Structure formats: C-alpha cells, structure tokens
C-alpha cells in the first residue's frame, strides 16, 4: 500500500520567533528553517510501516515556496521514495492545503495519509481533519500508536484525560502526536542518494484547485511581556512570599 505524507517547512523549533517591526508577521529572513517536528514524526512512522512490510511506497508532499524542496529532500533522505512540490506565491491556508491534498490523493490513491497534528508556525491543528472531511475518510488524530492490519488502521489517540483507541477503515487519515516515535536522522550517504530520488514540481493551478485565502491578517504583535520578578534567598522567604500572595489559606 501507498502512504502520502504532507510535510511543511517552518521556522526551526529552536529559533525564537521575532515579530517584524511593521507588524506584518514573524521575521523569516535569514533564520533556520526546518521540517515541522510533527511531520518528521509522520515521515518516520511511514518509514517504520515500510520496514515492517506493510507499506510499499512513501510519497511526500509539500506546498509552499520553491525552498520547500529542501524539506522534501530531507524526507527523501530519511527514507521516503518520491516527492511532490506544489509551489504557491501566496500563503495557502489549511483549507487550501487540504483541497490540494485531496486532489493529490485522488491521483495517487494512497491507503493512508499521515500528517502532523499541527504546524508549529501557525499552530492551526486543522489540515488533517479538513482532508478527512473532503475525502470522507476516518481521522485518527493526535496518534501515539498506529497499527495497520486487515484493511484498517487502529490508532491510540492522545486526548485530554488520557488515551482513546479507535479503528478506521482504510483509506484513512492519521495525524501524529509527539510520542508516536523518535524520528531518525538522515545519514550522509542517504542525503547523497536522496538527490537522485524523483521530485515532481507542480502548481496549485495544475490541480484546478482554488486556494485563495479566506482570512486576512490585519496585524501581528508581540504578546504582552512578563517581566522577571524577584529572587528569594531561602525557603523561608519563599514561604513568606506565598503568604503575601495569599496562596496559603
């Protein structure tokens, strides 16, 4: 069976985001960009399913600037087989991404689409669920365990109070949570080999999908800052502070 894994290029999670002075967004010039951490987990899960003999082909997809190619090459170096880059001049919102992924799914006929649960730039947590709506497939969101057997995928999901297990008929959508697995690093030889793997470049127009944004960002601001308070020197002083704050009875 085939697996489709959408991967997004985002500001590296170790970089502290800086709001641009003109209030139009977060500064992405000359900062380290990486694959969204949840998408690394999605790629890793697909590779593990391939290593188990469940999956035969892993196709990775990214939508965005031409530079998203680097992210796709990283996924290929980890072990994906083939990549599709859909370039877009403008930012594509989750609904637009889901519509493009639906068009790609129609073409590729995957049994499983594994996405990240959220992209750590816009923190939307929407795309997988939207793709599931458009395809009519089941959605195993926030997965901490994934098992494929007998034409179905059983997903343990991280929910507020603990964990919940559900089974979905294939084809299905899975979105990854952090504890699903520990992604591998691409080895140097694999990075070299990835350069020869196929990468197709498309545009949104090729799929006849309208990805015009529905939202307008009016401004982006820094959150109100907390200032550092005081340091106390002993437990007794801390207890006094707690009393002043009314924490103690």
């Amino acid at each position, binding site marked *: 069976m085939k697996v489709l894994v959408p991967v997004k290029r985002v500001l590296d999670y170790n970089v502290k985001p800086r709001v641009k002075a003109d209030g139009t967004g977060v500064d992405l010039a000359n900062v380290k960009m990486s694959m969204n951490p949840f998408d690394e987990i999605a790629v890793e899960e697909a590779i593990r399913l391939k290593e188990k003999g469940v999956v035969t082909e892993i196709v990775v997809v990214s939508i965005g600037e031409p530079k998203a190619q680097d992210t796709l090459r990283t996924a290929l170096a980890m072990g994906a087989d083939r990549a599709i880059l859909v370039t877009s001049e403008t930012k594509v919102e989750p609904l637009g991404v889901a519509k493009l992924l639906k068009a790609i799914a129609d073409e590729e006929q995957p049994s499983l689409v594994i996405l990240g649960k959220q992209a750590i730039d816009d923190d939307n947590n929407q795309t997988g669920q939207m793709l599931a*709506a458009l395809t009519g497939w089941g959605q195993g969101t*926030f997965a901490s365990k994934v098992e494929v057997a007998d034409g179905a995928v059983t997903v343990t999901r991280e929910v507020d109070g*603990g964990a919940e297990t*559900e089974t979905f008929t294939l084809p299905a959508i899975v979105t990854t949570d*952090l504890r699903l697995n520990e992604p591998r690093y691409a080895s140097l030889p694999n990075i070299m080999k990835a350069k020869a793997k196929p990468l197709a470049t498309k545009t949104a127009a090729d799929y006849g999908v309208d990805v015009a944004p529905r939202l307008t960002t009016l401004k982006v601001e820094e959150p109100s800052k907390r200032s550092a308070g005081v*340091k106390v020197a002993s*437990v007794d002083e*801390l207890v006094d*502070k*707690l009393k002043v704050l009314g924490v103690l009875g």
Partner: protein
Amino acid sequence: MKTLVLVEHDGHAIKDATLPTVTAAAKLGDVTLLVVGENVSGVAEAAAKIAGATKVLVADDAALAHMLAENVAPLVASTMAGYDAFLVPGTTNGKNIAPRVAALLDVAMISDILSVEGADTFTRPIYAGNAIATVQTKDAKLVLSVRGTAFEKAAAEGGSATTEPVSGATDAGVSRYVGSEIATSARPELTSAKIIVSGGRALQSGENFTQLIEPLADKLGAGVGASRAAVDAGYVPNDYQVGQTGKIVAPEVYIAIGISGAIQHLAGMKDSKVIIAINKDEDAPIFQVADVGLVGDLFTILPELTSKL
C-alpha cells in the same frame, strides 16, 4: 448573529471548558448549546442551566456515542444551516471535530481565539504564543475554537434555556471506538486548577514525583503538571503535559520545579497570574518570566518547603 456552541462533556457532567466558550459566543450574538452523545439527557438538563444560552439542541443517538468526528461533523454541518457561527472549546475533542465541520461548510476555521474584536475579526496566538495575530475572515460562516484561559467562565447555573431534540444522526461507517484509558484523579483538573505544581526532567523519576511534587500539591490543594521532558521520560502520564502541544493553563499560581522554561513550555503557562520557579541554574530561562524565583536544589528545597507550609 446566531451561534452554536459544542458542549464538552464526559457523558455525565459538563466540562468546565464549555463555559468560557459560551462567553466568547455571547460576544457574537445569541447562544444555542449543542449536546451530542448517547444517553445525554442529564447533560442536556445541566446545559439548560448555563447562564447566557437561550436554547439547547440535543442530538442523542448511538452513532454519536464517543463523539466520533466522522459521525458528529456531518450532523453539526447540517445543523449549521440555521446558524452563523460554530464555536468549540479548545480541547482535544473540539480540535478533532471543528476543522472537519469547517471543511464540510467550505469555510476557514480560526483556532484558539483569544478575543473577539468584531463580528469577523479575532486575535489568536501563533508560533507557540510568541506572536499574536489579528485575523479577519471573508467567509459567511464562522468556525472557531476558543482558548479557555482567555475568556471568563459563564455561570454554570442560573440560565433557563429551552431544549429541542436534533435528529438525523447517522453512522458514516468508517470509524469505530475501541476503548479508552482515562486517568481518574482526586486532584483538580489542570485547566481549572487555581494552583498548579509542575515538575520537569530534573525530578529524575516517577517516584520522585510521588515523593516530592505530590505532597507539596496536597498541601496547596493544587493540580499537578509536568514538562514534556518529564512526560517523555515516563515519570507521569501524558495528560500532565503543559505547553504548546499539551494543556494551556492560567492558574492563580504556577510553581515550576526543575523546568528550564523552553518556549514550548512557556506557551502553555505564561498567562498564569503568579509564576514561581525553583531551579538550580540561576540563568534558566524560566526565571525571565517568574515573579518569584528560588535558586537551588529541588531535592533539598521541596522537603523543607512542604514541611513549612
């Protein structure tokens, strides 16, 4: 504007996360509550008492047990024919269902709203709360999830809404509930606790959580939280995690113990009223947001602190 609010419940009781969502909806217009599930008449009765709601719609059907998104979303989408906005609490359940509804309605969804700036304009956190975006939608209908810490809770009592059944639920036939492991604890839930005692990687083991963090939490009547590092290391279950990808909390007092203060952790707790940090590294980033800091070894500080309270 007519708004529809998804009631968060466990089959018996309404979850607190519903209440700030009602407050957000009331800023947009008239509030109808939607109770979805199987055998939920008790929940519906409780929902009718929430102040600020005029109507409660009850979709009670075997296909809706366990809130499977595949079955719930089409029902919500068809109900939305009579409404302008659908709001869900920013819980895992809300986040599972709302985007599926938005896509069925062919509208954008706005996640985790912090404020209502106008009928089509909202603020929301991006980049783990390191930036706040003001966004406006062009779509005819709104689908929103609500950051519970950003709105006051509506009163759980005092309302007298009318109740109406909603029919038409079907099983989409693509998903099946297998089981769940829901932790039960006598402690206050993290998202509604007034005080939270949170431990990090420095605790070194689950036993140390039990022996050092819990007695302190007991003394304070506090909820217990953790950093992702502590959860990943298996010291505590995953639903203890506070942060960008865990729970978002804003208690009166948050006590961070042996937690460095990575941006992903701060994203979940920096709106707490008072932050107290105990860390042996005086340069730990957590001290940059802490109102009160104590530099030292938690293994000596915690027993002393607990005994002196």
